[in-house]
């Protein structure tokens, strides 16, 4: 930007203008309601799409983490068979060993 001879100073709001305790306006309240509606709809769509145990556990993990973020930050307990397993891995195709605790 070249030097302009037409300079306008930007006025500053005073520090005491900040007020997080101001009662919520209709506009912000509507925004809250809309977000809540969208999230409810999102959860419901996710819930209705669950067909498998894996999908169920992913859903459960996501919302348990939402309710209990401390738990989400911890590493999962080691697998009972010690090796990393996925549903598509060779070992997963073997007959699963049921936990004695069901």
């Amino acid at each position, binding site marked *: 930007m070249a030097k302009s001879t037409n300079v306008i100073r930007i006025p500053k709001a005073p520090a005491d203008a900040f007020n997080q305790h101001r009662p919520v306006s209709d*506009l912000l309240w509507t925004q809250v309601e809309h977000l809540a509606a969208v999230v409810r709809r999102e959860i419901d769509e996710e819930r209705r799409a669950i067909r498998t145990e894996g999908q169920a556990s992913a859903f459960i993990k996501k919302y348990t983490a939402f309710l209990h973020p401390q738990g989400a930050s911890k590493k999962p307990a080691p697998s009972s068979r010690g090796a990393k397993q996925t549903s598509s891995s060779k070992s997963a195709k073997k007959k699963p060993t049921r936990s004695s605790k069901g």
Partner: protein
Amino acid sequence: MTKGLDNLKHVVVLMMENRSFDHMLGALMQADPRINGLTGNETNPDSNGQPARVEPLALYQSQLDPDPDHHFPGVNLQLYGNGGPPGVPTMQGFVKSYFEQRRDVNHSHKIMYYFPPAKIPILTGLARNYAVFNGWFSSIPGPTLCNRACAHYGTSFGQVGMNLFYLNVPYLSIYERMVKAGRTAKLYYFDQQSSSLEVVNLLKNQPRLFGLYEDFLADCKKNRLPDYCFVEPNYSDHEDDGGGELLASDQHPDHHVLAGEAFIASVYNAIRKNPNLWKSTLLLVTYDEHGGIYDHVPPPACTPDTPYVASAEATGTGVPFAFDRLGVRVPAIAISPWIPKGTVIAGSEDAANGRVFEHASIPATVMQAFQLNDENRSPREKAASTFLDLLSDQMRPDNDCPVFK
């Protein structure tokens, strides 16, 4: 085609919140009689029948509390006083409407207050240095979301309120139309605490269209600005991730007006500081609606938004609304180095040459700017005035265009 139009590559819209034309720019008429502002003699009757006069006493904060009514029935009272449509609005019910909220006669007079230009140098500086519209009206005599919808879609799909859940609507947003045509478009919201006001429809269904304000600043710097973008201010006082205080910059009462001034300056400077962008961008600064604050110009009739009609129950007035008249006038300023300094676009005060604009003028202008041909648009958008003709053949010298520091 003018040279200004030939150079046009980007259209940027910044939409602020809830201030009327007369409240923000009405005092400019004293310096420039072409601007259809306030003579100082405008009045509204108060609840005692006494005239409440316009006064240059607007404060930045703590004056319009409670938030003035701007829902459909409240605006109806503001426009018609104790009467109602049909007919030309009298603009005599603003003080009565505000009195209803606090039952305090003296306080109700504050709805007539306006800013002296020196108190808001950014907005008034832009108005005097570029093009100010005498006849830009909110699209609907109602609140925020139905009006913002008209900027995004060219219609509110029959809504006059705040609950806009669009399902199976017939028209695409201007952003989707742009992308469909191989163009780029984006909505930049301030941050995640402020978010977008388009959460239910666009953010939910088209998240790829969104970015944060810091992305806007970076995109301006790195020549990555999309062909069309819409900027949303910060809607709440909140702390950033580091605990710093972020003031709401939307100018919605009772947010501090100077925080909005700084935000407008920030958007302008981001474009102005990049010479490539500056010569190829048309910036529009406007407001979604008047926020219940006085303006003296009666909103005109307009093309009905067929087939939509809001029911008597939906309007809350006992009378249906066919989207055949506009809402209250708001500030609107078009900014580009290709616009001659001190341009005033006449409105209804000039019966021969006056032009009427509304928020559907935004998608209509963007369509024209990027030569999109989509006939599947609302009647309101198809009929809306566009403003590309403001771009002239002459680019102003750099030192003639203001900088904000």
